[in-house]
């Protein structure tokens, strides 16, 4: 019997791995020192741990330890990268390029800069979520100081061709930041090979702790400089003041180390469960649509554990209510704080009617095949239950074109 509830929302956050917790444990009580205390044993112990973490993280992404800046999480890393570049290179230009499908941590940071007078281009994406390289090339001007494009999308799992984007930016002499929160630790990430200048990462998406993250900042060719966004004691080479969160940093590094070690087998396992889930849904239900790249056709272009499906004619929140022992997310407006359905799905050209019916499944390290099979069974049952009482499903089955109906929008 499968244990309930089932957590299938691993793109939102992940359960911390016990190995990570054990690695962090001594740094709360035993080795509680301030890593900036240079003159006693307590400080040295803390500094040693931070040095190990910095090296471990750097090695994982083929960077130099001096290129890692610790932060409170990916949101802070995104803010630091974008605002830090905009301020530092203000005399060079005032233009930033990003995507309409970025995480709010990037979009709202860009909006904040617009209010300060900068210009931001929000590039559209195709129906699978990919940015068009020619469109990006055309958007770059001599006033462009930064291109910020996420590696993998949190909702639809689409993986951008970061290597080509980075190459293009470097050819044009533009700094390139990528929000790699969802991808680092899940798919290979190499700052040299991928021509990345700045990269954000977070602990809690990779079975590590919440409240800790890092920003990779390239030191040479080109040397990237940032204006700090947090002033104080000059920690992190002046880029991010604040006493280092030693246990969190150790946890972040341990979490990433495990991810890298287990990636070859784990990717295959998680991807296998995701693919089976998608095929099982298709075998059991009609009128369902994948959001983002097809997992079977383009496995390398989608995060291994991510599945986002629209179950037409069934509202997302109602479906979630029908599978209440399974934790997933929906692009439906009813589940978000705003009254709009997912802006990411909208950017793909998914109609609002279908956006309301979308469910995101995020399969991760602690999920089993048994849990995924149970989920398919529950979802199929709930979709059938709800379609039996959906006027839209009945109308569609009668051959009525729902687009031709004069709906009274409210």
């Amino acid at each position, binding site marked *: 019997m499968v244990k309930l509830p089932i957590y299938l929302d691993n793109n939102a956050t992940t359960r911390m791995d016990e190995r990570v917790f054990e690695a962090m444990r001594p740094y709360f009580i035993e080795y509680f020192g301030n890593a900036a205390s240079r003159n006693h044993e307590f400080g040295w112990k803390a500094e040693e741990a931070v040095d190990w973490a910095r090296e471990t993280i750097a090695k994982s992404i083929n960077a130099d330890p001096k290129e890692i800046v610790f932060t409170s999480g990916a949101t802070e890393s995104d803010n630091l990268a974008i605002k830090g570049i905009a301020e530092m290179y203000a005399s060079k230009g005032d233009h930033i390029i990003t995507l309409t499908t970025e995480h709010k941590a990037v979009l709202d940071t860009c909006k904040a800069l617009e209010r300060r007078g900068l210009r931001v281009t929000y590039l559209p994406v195709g129906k699978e979520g990919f940015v068009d390289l020619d469109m990006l090339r055309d958007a770059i001007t001599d006033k462009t100081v930064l291109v910020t494009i996420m590696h993998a999308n949190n909702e639809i799992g689409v993986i951008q061709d970061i290597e080509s984007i980075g190459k293009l930016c470097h050819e044009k002499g533009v700094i390139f930041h990528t929000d790699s929160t969802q991808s680092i630790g899940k798919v290979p990430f190499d700052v040299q090979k991928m021509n990345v200048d700045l990269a954000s990462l977070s602990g809690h998406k990779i079975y590590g702790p919440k409240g800790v993250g890092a920003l990779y900042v390239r030191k040479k060719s080109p040397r990237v400089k940032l204006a700090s966004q947090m002033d104080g004691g000059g920690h992190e080479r002046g880029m991010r003041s604040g006493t280092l969160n030693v246990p969190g940093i150790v946890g972040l590094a341990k979490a990433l180390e495990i991810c890298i070690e287990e990636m070859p087998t784990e990717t295959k396992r998680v991807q296998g469960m995701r693919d089976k889930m998608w095929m099982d849904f298709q075998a059991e239900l009609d009128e369902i649509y994948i959001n983002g790249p097809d997992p079977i056709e383009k496995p390398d272009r989608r995060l291994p554990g991510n599945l986002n499906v629209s179950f037409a004619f069934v*509202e997302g929140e109602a479906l979630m209510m029908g599978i209440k022992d399974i934790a997933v997310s929906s692009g439906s407006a009813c589940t978000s704080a705003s009254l709009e359905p997912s802006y990411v799905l909208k950017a793909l050209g998914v109609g609002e009617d279908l956006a309301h019916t979308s469910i995101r499944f995020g399969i991760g390290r602690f999920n089993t095949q048994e849990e995924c099979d149970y989920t398919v069974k529950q979802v199929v049952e709930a979709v059938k239950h709800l379609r039996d*009482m959906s*006027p839209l499903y009945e109308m569609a089955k009668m051959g009525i074109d729902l687009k031709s109906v004069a*709906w*009274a*929008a409210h």
Partner: protein
Amino acid sequence: MAYSEKVIDHYQNPRNVGTLDPNDPSVGTGLVGAPECGDVMRLQLRINPDSGVIEDAKFKTFGCGSAIASSSFATEMIKGKTVDEAYEIKNTTIVKELNLPPVKIHCSVLAEDAIKAAIEDYKKKQESVAHAEPVAQ
């Protein structure tokens, strides 16, 4: 946000799900909401033309759990009422009965709209029937 017990009950065991013949002159159909908004309710009433009493009510709803519960509860509430009584039903009654939180009040408004739309459809049909009869004779 937790759902009230009543909402869960109506969601799991919806009352009066189904379809009545929309071409039947004694049936009034109300279709409100829009797929783009994430809510569509269809409420159908079979009304006794002599007494004006609602003898049967069926619904189908595309929407969240609270929307489904609001329409299910509405069908329960209006069966046996006269058309005039049903027309007076306010959404606040549904909010109270189902214990809907503020963000779900629009679901109850939609149910009230559906009741009114169904009754208006029925009345329109009756008028055209009344109109048609003398011509036929």
